[in-house]
């Protein structure tokens, strides 16, 4: 049974001091229900997650105690992708006629401070100052730039594109375009990555309503079909965050594995995809993920960025809503924001940021600690 997305809702990303994370989740849920033209009491099951905004299943306190089956999911930065995958399999199996997918979060300002014990690492690792995701991202792209001849200009180009796209997206957090000079003048955080090349923890919420494709027209005239969802964890030898050591033999990343599984499910390849949302925790991540998801060769990104291929008017637009860089990263909602944006673009509802040329297929990729990737392939 094929599965369709028939309702989408988003509470603006950034900071909403007057609302809890859960309340932002409820706002997104109400928007998605209205979009699908369905009542809360008709929703049969729900899957969702939040890192710092409370248990997602508490949404019934906001929406109504309807008795639906609801499962709280937490899978790091890939929480949204994992929630969507669970809802997809629930509807695809025929067990439920429809499903809510919900992600929301509300993080304190500043970098996350993770506890070594939560990751199976002894305390000394944090005490000597190695328990920082920003270091990992710096070291990963440093090596990648060395191996594949990528320059600092490419890092700047990704950030410049993100803030331009954010400036024309009314629900983005960072809505001021930045020049390459602004980005190069920003504080160095972890070489070679500067402040405006990193996303920040933030707030926001996204909800999606799924149903079987056969029933999609009952809800909407513009269903978006889920051709594939795949979530994969790391193999031995993949370079991941919070690793006191790593083996010399390197393995394909979880992104490569999830991507290949998704293409196989959908029966299409990267050349058939029109637009993509790729995890851009920082500029370097977007560059690596362009190749790991099969859209270009390793090393080709330099030329692609120089030629503007991933801009909204380019041959392969990436992160048209400004990505994590311009929207921030509310962990529970971030992966679902990517799916929301692809739905907006395929429905031709992108306004000032609408991709020209009537895109028909889209791709999303979320990646998170400690090595989880979730990929979806969508079409209209």
């Amino acid at each position: 049974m094929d599965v369709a997305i028939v309702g989408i809702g988003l509470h603006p990303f950034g900071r909403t001091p007057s609302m809890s994370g859960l309340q932002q989740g409820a706002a997104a849920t109400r928007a998605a229900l209205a979009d699908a033209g369905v009542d809360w009491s008709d929703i049969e099951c729900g899957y969702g997650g939040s890192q710092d905004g409370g248990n997602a299943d508490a949404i019934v306190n906001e929406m109504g105690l309807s008795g639906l089956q609801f499962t709280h999911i937490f899978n790091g930065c890939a929480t949204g992708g994992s929630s969507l995958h669970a809802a997809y399999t629930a509807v695809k199996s025929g067990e439920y006629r429809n499903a809510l997918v919900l992600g929301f979060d509300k993080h304190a300002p500043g970098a996350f401070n993770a506890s070594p014990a939560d990751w199976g690492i002894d305390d000394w690792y944090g005490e000597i100052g190695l328990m920082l995701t920003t270091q990992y991202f710096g070291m990963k792209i440093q090596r990648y730039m060395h191996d594949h001849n990528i320059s600092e200009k490419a890092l700047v180009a990704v950030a410049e594109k993100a803030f331009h796209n954010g400036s024309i997206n009314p629900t983005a957090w960072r809505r001021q375009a930045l020049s390459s000079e602004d980005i190069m003048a920003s504080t160095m955080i972890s070489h070679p990555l500067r402040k405006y090349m990193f996303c920040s923890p933030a707030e926001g919420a996204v909800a999606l309503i799924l149903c079987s494709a056969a029933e999609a027209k009952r809800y909407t005239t513009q269903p978006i079909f889920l051709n594939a969802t795949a979530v994969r964890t790391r193999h031995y030898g993949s370079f991941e965050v919070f690793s006191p050591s790593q083996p010399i033999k390197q393995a394909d990343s979880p992104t490569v594995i999830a991507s290949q599984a998704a293409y196989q499910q959908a029966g299409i390849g990267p050349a058939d995809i029109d637009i993509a949302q790729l995890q851009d925790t920082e500029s370097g991540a977007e560059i690596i993920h362009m190749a790991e998801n099969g859209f270009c060769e390793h090393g080709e990104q330099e030329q692609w960025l120089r030629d503007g291929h991933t801009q909204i008017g380019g041959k392969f637009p990436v992160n048209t809503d400004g990505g994590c860089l311009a929207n921030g990263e509310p962990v529970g909602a971030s992966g679902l924001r990517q799916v929301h944006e692809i739905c907006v673009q395929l429905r031709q509802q992108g306004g000032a940021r609408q991709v020209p040329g009537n895109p028909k297929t889209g791709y999303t990729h979320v990646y998170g600690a400690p090595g989880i990737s979730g990929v979806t392939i969508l079409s209209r």
Partner: protein
Amino acid sequence: MSDKPIHANLFTWPADNPSLLGGLCGHCGEVSFPAQSSCRHCSGTGSSVIELGDRGTLWTWTVQNFLPKPPYVTDQTTATFEPYGVGYVEMPAGVRIESRLLTSDPEKLHIGMPMRLVIERFSRNDQGGHNLSFAFDCLEVS
């Protein structure tokens, strides 16, 4: 002695020429750091502790330019914080070790450069001495 390693079995101590310590899996030969009783490669459980030596090459690096939040332990403040290098050092024993680097000058750090182990006084312990930790420094080739 009031100076003590920050954690057991990370490096030989006391020693005139300290060496990092790792684990060698008895089943598949995989090398880990720190030593762990079960193998992350083959899930075997018969591993032994081996010396990984005190020399390696820099595989990748970055610089920590802001004062980390806890669990980082330091007497420094945002005003007195001094950036430190972080890198993965590839050891001839067959593993890459994540480590603080004594050098934080990006002009002096290069992928592939030779590195040497140093044991540094890191933070104060509750016995009036210091916690000792491992770090790597650029090896000056004479």
